[in-house]
């Protein structure tokens, strides 16, 4: 109801104030978006290097040797280099892409506008959260350039491998320290963002914008922020404990009696490697919901808008989002079924994990229900939303195998798990971001993206990601272990090298296709057709202001909301949509 106190009365002047150290949530959202875009290009390149090496482990590639004279001497990637690329791939993708773009990118830009606010509650904190994230990325990337290179313990950094220091492997010296420091800085940035989002949503909704009239995107940004607030605090604590074990001789995670590389480790005792896993996954599971919830919100928004139909079961969708958020804190043990965890607690975690499948199923049914009886417009944004539903089903159902400890006895640490989480995070979530991009680009930049190029991008990517990630489930059934630099030492894997080869080719092709997206994005920034205020005839508040919006969003006017977010195709109304801010009384169904 009240205006934020720290927002500016006048538009900022000067390049630095406007585009660098901006307090404007819209600029900050775009900064996050491009940070995420830069990060995904790095993350994707790392994965291509990995996929190349897996199928060509002994082939010398000239420029590998130039880039990494020690770690790829003679142009052949060493296993430690492979593992460090893998570690950084996971870390950069999960933190700097999946945790930034959907929430801090789109959320920052559109949350205030969708609830009728002029800016976030704390614009200075907002600016600090971006630059802190930027600093975290710089520190993370610097791990590549230090002695020993980037760490090799995976994005999960299990001790003792990650805790005992350089002695456990190359990259486990300074590289691992920088990784921990980067993550800790990132935690700080996330906490700043989470506080801002929650305060904004609680306090700055305009008149008439009750919680149950908010677009579903806002609900997902709210719950994601709560998950971030509680989860990142624990990760920060875990990181502090880990770096203490590594540098000052504490023993949170290190037991006595270790012998590494023929050297008996003294000076540590009483620690538990399992403690790290508990702390990490207590954060790690909410983290994956942080990665997917905003994408679900975008999917609901797009499916409704482009079917010209209200979201099917809005209230159920809200309860599903809240349940996923709440239950998300209770299932972390399913990442630890094989860890030596108490087997009775495994059953408790398994039951809760099956429960969390229920709200996800509700959302899927309701997306299908939204389409049913609709009038579907196949814009590129809509195609990505439809693709999201297909991919979410495929990725989600493999969770029904993994959530059972009895079946995880085989599938843990196989490619079945890799296929599962890539489908959900690496694809469905990414499709949410693509959909959001094609949908909101006109509003953010005042120009339309090219629909033809967009559609080619969609179809090629959709088929491509299925080709890359579905075979991983078959590999899991064969028993293909994870995190192997190459497969030449396991006889039973000789029969699946053709599958790996297929996946690698699919990866190169799908990556190449993304050039279309990049071209479309950057070309349209300058040369796209000028966009109108509401090119999609969408009902939510951002479509009632100019494209791009003025610095204070509503040009000094305080919007008033009269109805829910998805009033499409009302009987008796000529237009097939009614804006949330439209005061005209309309007889509607309950």
């Amino acid at each position: 109801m009240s205006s934020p106190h720290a927002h500016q009365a006048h538009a900022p002047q000067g390049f630095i104030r406007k585009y660098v150290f901006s307090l404007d949530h819209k600029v900050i959202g775009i900064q996050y978006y491009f940070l995420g875009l830069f990060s995904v290009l790095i993350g994707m390149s790392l994965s291509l290097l990995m996929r190349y090496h897996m199928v060509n482990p002994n082939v010398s590639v000239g420029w590998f040797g130039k880039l990494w004279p020690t770690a790829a001497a003679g142009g052949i990637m060493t296993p430690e280099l492979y593992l460090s690329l893998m570690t950084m791939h996971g870390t950069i993708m999960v933190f700097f892409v999946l945790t930034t773009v959907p929430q801090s990118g789109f959320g920052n830009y559109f949350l205030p506008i969708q609830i009728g606010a002029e800016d976030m509650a704390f614009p200075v904190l907002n600016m600090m959260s971006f630059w802190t994230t930027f600093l975290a990325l710089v520190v993370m990337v610097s791990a590549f350039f230090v002695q020993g290179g980037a760490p090799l313990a995976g994005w999960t950094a299990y001790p003792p491998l990650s805790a005992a220091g350089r002695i456990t492997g190359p990259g486990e010296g300074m590289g691992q320290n920088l990784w921990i420091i980067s993550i800790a800085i990132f935690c700080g940035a996330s906490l700043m963002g989470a506080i801002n989002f929650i305060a904004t949503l609680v306090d700055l909704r305009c008149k008439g914008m009750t919680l149950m009239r908010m677009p579903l995107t806002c609900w997902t940004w709210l719950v994601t922020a709560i998950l971030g607030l509680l989860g990142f605090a624990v990760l920060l604590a875990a990181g502090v404990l880990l770096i203490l074990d590594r540098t000052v001789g504490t023993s949170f995670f290190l037991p006595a009696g270790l012998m590494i590389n023929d050297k008996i480790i003294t000076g540590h005792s009483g620690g538990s490697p399992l403690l790290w896993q508990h702390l990490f996954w207590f954060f790690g599971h909410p983290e994956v919901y942080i990665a997917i919830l905003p994408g679900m919100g975008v999917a609901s928004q797009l499916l409704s808008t482009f079917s010209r139909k209200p979201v099917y079961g809005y209230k159920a969708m809200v309860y599903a989002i809240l349940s996923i958020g709440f239950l998300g804190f209770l299932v972390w043990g399913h990442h630890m079924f094989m860890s030596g965890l108490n087997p009775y607690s495994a059953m408790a975690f398994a039951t809760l994990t099956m429960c969390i499948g229920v709200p996800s199923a509700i959302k899927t049914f309701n997306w299908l229900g939204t389409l049913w009886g609709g009038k579907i417009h196949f814009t590129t944004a809509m195609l990505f939303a439809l693709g999201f539903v297909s991919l979410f089903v495929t990725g989600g159902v493999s969770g029904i195998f993994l959530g059972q400890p009895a079946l995880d006895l085989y599938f843990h640490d196989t490619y079945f798990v890799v296929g599962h989480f890539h489908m959900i995070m690496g694809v469905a979530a990414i499709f949410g971001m693509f959909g959001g991009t094609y949908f909101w680009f006109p509003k953010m930049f005042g120009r339309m993206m090219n629909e033809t190029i967009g559609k080619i991008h969609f179809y090629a990517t959709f088929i491509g990601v299925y080709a890359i990630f579905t075979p991983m489930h078959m590999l899991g059934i064969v028993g293909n272990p994870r995190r192997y630099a190459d497969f030449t030492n396991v006889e039973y894997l000789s029969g699946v090298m053709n599958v790996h080869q297929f996946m690698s080719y699919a990866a190169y092709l799908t990556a190449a296709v993304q050039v279309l997206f990049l071209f479309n994005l950057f070309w349209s920034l300058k040369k796209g057709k000028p966009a109108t205020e509401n090119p999609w005839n969408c009902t939510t508040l951002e479509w009632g202001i100019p494209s791009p919006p003025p610095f204070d969003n509503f040009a000094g006017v305080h919007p008033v909301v009269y109805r829910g977010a998805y009033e499409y195709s009302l009987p008796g109304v000529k237009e097939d949509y009614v804006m949330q801010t439209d005061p005209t009384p309309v007889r509607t169904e309950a």
Partner: protein
Amino acid sequence: MLLAPIIWALAVAIVYFFVAKTWWFPPPISQHGMAYDAQFNRTLVVVGVIFFLAQVVLGYAIVKFRNDGRRATYSHGNNKMESLWTSATALLFLSLVLMGTKIWAGVHFDEAPPDAIPIEVLSKQFAWNFRYPGPDGIFGHTDLHLVNDAAGNPFGIDDKDPAGKDDIVSASLKIPAGKPIKLILHSRDVIHNFFVRELRMKQDIVPGMEIPLHFDTEPGTVGIYEVPCSELCGLGHFQMRTTMQVMSPADFEKWKQDQAQK
């Protein structure tokens, strides 16, 4: 719309590979393994039906409700349908996990039978070693300071302890078919994982913990089965592999005697 046939084609192709079992599990060699496969198949049927139906319905909706001029149906949903499919899903998912409990219990709630053959497993960067107690049935005392891989003493067996003199150390696991086995898993350095596909089980090996894992094999499952480390343990993780050789009980006795002679 083009998207519908693509979704349907993908769904059909995926179901095909699961039905044709083009890339599949190796045959199980234990009762537990057979029970595992039954639970997997149950889950596969449920998941397969959900997956296929969802993709078909999605494709159907794309075709049937594409923009053809008519107006969309204004509806906020149907609470009865919501309750129906929510309860059905919950029932289905919870039943599946409960059905699997017996399998999980057999591995982790139940103790190894008293006549199980105890075998110590030592995992380290990047090799496996196994120790048998020998005819006296007692594992000899070990000391970390006595560990000497090069001299063939990876366990650090104390030669002052008479119980250790008949201990058998081997780089690969050898067991008799049809008898219960109890592995006692140790790690010297970082987390590793013992995995045998045909047994349908694996277990993380955590330094500082002594973790038991028991199983038995069916008689007649003689063969050599691979044991690839299944938890990231460093740069040699992909090379950390050994074998589990299942022998006839007679051959196993002969092997033990041969080892004792050494």
